[in-house]
């Protein structure tokens, strides 16, 4: 529009622009508000949706690798499987950091600080959580079948607690709360599942939970309108 209006007399260009800006009735105004809120919701949520998608796929690949390897190797994954698992986790960490930085880009304020702190809390929780498991394995001389149950259960517990913290950063998030409940239940269940079964459950139910959260968040934000009860996180 700006190219055409620049060739018109100034008063005509201004008149055209004023006409384009005019809102005909309150219903149209409400429609504009709803549509813009939807766009903002979609933008704000897209980062966390993509991070959930990444971790859903990473968990599926990583734990399926361990499951297949343990199936072929007398219930204990081989070294190459653990290396692939570690690589998948590193890919997940790097992508999460990139997505988190991109989501927060262009914003400044307390929400940015909260988002950065939340991102770091994930990294630190896993570093200390997994280190604690390693110490327990050494200190108590755990056997292979016990080790997998411990690591799986603590990993799921960390995810559940982190999502619980995340759900309190903004307004109440039902999909995230359901994920918390599911992960905490899974944490207990994995204590009874050793070896291949444990890895399969982590891949399909743990990874599946991340993917379900990404889908539920996407659908919830499609309908958010005037309520607009989410702020930048």
């Amino acid at each position, binding site marked *: 529009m700006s190219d055409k209006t620049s060739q018109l007399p100034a008063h005509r260009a201004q008149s055209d622009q004023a006409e384009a800006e005019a809102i005909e009735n309150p219903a149209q105004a409400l429609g504009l508000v709803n549509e813009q809120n939807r766009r903002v919701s979609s933008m704000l949520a897209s980062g966390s949706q993509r991070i959930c998608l990444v971790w859903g796929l990473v968990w599926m690949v990583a734990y399926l690798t361990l499951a297949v390897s343990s199936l072929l190797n007398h219930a204990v994954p081989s070294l190459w499987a653990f290396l692939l698992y570690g690589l998948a986790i590193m890919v997940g960490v790097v992508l999460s950091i990139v997505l988190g930085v991109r989501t927060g880009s*262009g914003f400044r304020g307390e929400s940015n600080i909260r988002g950065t702190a939340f991102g770091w809390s994930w990294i630190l929780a896993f570093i200390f959580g997994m280190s604690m498991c390693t110490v327990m394995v050494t200190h108590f001389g755990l056997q292979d079948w016990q080790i997998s149950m411990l690591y799986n259960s603590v990993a799921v517990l960390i995810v559940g607690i982190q999502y619980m913290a995340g759900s309190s950063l903004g307004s109440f998030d039902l999909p995230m709360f359901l994920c918390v409940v599911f992960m905490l239940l899974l944490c207990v269940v994995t204590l009874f599942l050793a070896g291949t079964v444990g890895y399969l459950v982590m891949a399909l139910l743990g990874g599946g939970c991340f993917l379900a959260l990404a889908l539920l968040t996407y659908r919830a934000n499609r309908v958010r309108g005037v309520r607009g009860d989410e702020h930048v996180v």
Partner: protein
Amino acid sequence: MSSELDPIIHATSRLRIMTVLSRVGQGEEISFERLRQLLNMTPGNLSVHLSKLEGARYLKQSKTFEGRKPITYITLSAKGAAAYQEYLEQLTRLLSGADSDSLRS
């Protein structure tokens, strides 16, 4: 009916700007470029409307540098937040009134 609505906000682009700033939250800042992408507006068009809103003291613009790159951040003022809230309430009242009128007729 629409004459009751704040004329500063009651224009397509400015209403959309105020909606985004309200969602971002008072006290939080959004960069000019990020706002422009969200609104899908040209830089010139956005500048014009931001100036009008800033003239009414509904928002504040602050210019800074990130590295060597100049960046403008925009934030909703307390006056702007109150004005937008009032605008939404008036809109709701007008629409409720319109619904009642149509039911009576």
